[in-house]
């Protein structure tokens, strides 16, 4: 019995009851983390750590956006991984926005949540802060060249993005379709 009491007293969640500062931090943190975990959504700093846990099956065809800079393929050989991510991710977002008429899934969710809830003035103000308009899409093209220029330390004259489709067999990829979708 004494051993059991000693064990319970040594448990972390019991020990923190003696320290209010820690208690006020840990308990709400655990509550929100569990809540978001159960809901399956993440809000900083409460993350879900799946780490490639979503089940995926082999596809027949694979889509890829090839980027040509000054008519040369942009490959990750030029960059460290983080830098390359900061180049590829905005580009993917840019292509996606073009495909979806500039409507991101955040905008769809915003309309669903706040349309009719906020006044028209506030609704449009907040929408403009989370959405990208045609002007910003144009500004992206200038920014992309600038950032690439800084990262690669060379003059960027042209950028071309092609949508490609591949069929993969073992470690061989065969291109079956190629289409230029953006040039700037």
């Amino acid at each position, binding site marked *: 019995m004494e051993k059991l009491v000693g064990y319970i007293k040594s448990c*972390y969640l019991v020990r*923190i009851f003696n*320290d209010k*500062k*820690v208690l006020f*931090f*840990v308990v709400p943190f655990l509550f929100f983390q569990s809540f978001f975990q159960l809901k399956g*959504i993440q*809000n*900083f*700093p409460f*993350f879900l*750590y*799946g*780490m*490639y*846990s*979503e*089940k*995926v*099956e*082999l*596809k027949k065809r*694979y889509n*890829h956006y*090839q980027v040509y800079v000054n008519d040369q393929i942009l*490959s*990750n050989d030029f*960059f*460290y*991984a*983080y*830098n390359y*991510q*900061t180049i590829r*991710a*905005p580009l*993917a*977002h840019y292509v996606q926005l073009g495909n979806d008429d500039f409507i*991101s*899934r*955040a905008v769809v969710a915003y309309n669903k949540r706040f349309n009719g809830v906020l006044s028209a003035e506030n609704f449009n103000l*907040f929408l403009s*802060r*989370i*959405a990208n308009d045609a002007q*910003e899409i144009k*500004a*992206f093209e*200038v*920014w992309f060249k600038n*950032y690439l220029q*800084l990262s690669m330390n060379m003059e960027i004259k042209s950028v071309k993005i092609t949508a*490609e489709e*591949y069929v*993969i067999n*073992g*470690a*061989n*990829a065969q291109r079956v379709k190629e289409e230029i979708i953006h040039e700037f």
Partner: protein
Amino acid sequence: MIDLSKIVLRKLLARLAFLAIGLLLIYYYVNHLFISQLSNPALVYPDLDNTYWLFLFLAIPQQIAGSISLSFLLDGSLVVFLVLSFVFWKKPIFPICFLLLYVLYFITYNSFSCHHFHHTGVFFLVLPFCFSGSAFSLIFEFIRYYLCFIYASAGCYKLFRGTIFNTNQLVEVLRTTHLEALSNNELNPFLDFLLSNPFFSHSLFVFAVLLELFFLVGFFTKKLDYLLFIALIVMKVSLFLVMDFVAWELLLLDIIMIPSINKRLYESQVD
């Protein structure tokens, strides 16, 4: 239980943590990842995260990224408070300021890099140093549990979603991740081997999931922390070999495991 607050070791841990974060900031600088180096990005990416929405509604990331002086101020302050946290390791005020600035940096960077990275290692590594007295060691211990949670939950997701039994999982992830290298015939021999040998790929995947599930042990005992410490490094090296990517911030969190590994060393330093 070792009381980290009473021992000289807080100094060692603070120095180690802030030195590692300093190296990470140098890496950010070399990679052009400071906000001032993003040179006024155009596209915003809130995704479905309410915290990002709140910051963007208040136009905080837009103001910082859109202004040269503000972005320099944020980047400069990050470095200054990092140095102050390193030098004045006893005072929680400097890590608190650093943490607040880092959150601002993190949300601004992710909003404009168009990808919400899960690189929370710095955030959780600095957190204990924002507390003094016995609260420091209790929060330190909490972060240790959080580290176990990160990997154990990743393992559990793979188990409960049945991903661990999907023989094509790693091959498909590799195909998607390295499609660019595949299309340009730039695949390295190891990845070439993995893609051509699905059985070996799947075995490697199962091994990685088992390593993740091993972190469940961390909730019941601290005696095996040295193995968890090694497991985390093994996972990060494997991730680098297989995915060509290292989440340095999560690797930094490994520092949290050091006190329970060097228990004897710490006990000998108790005042």
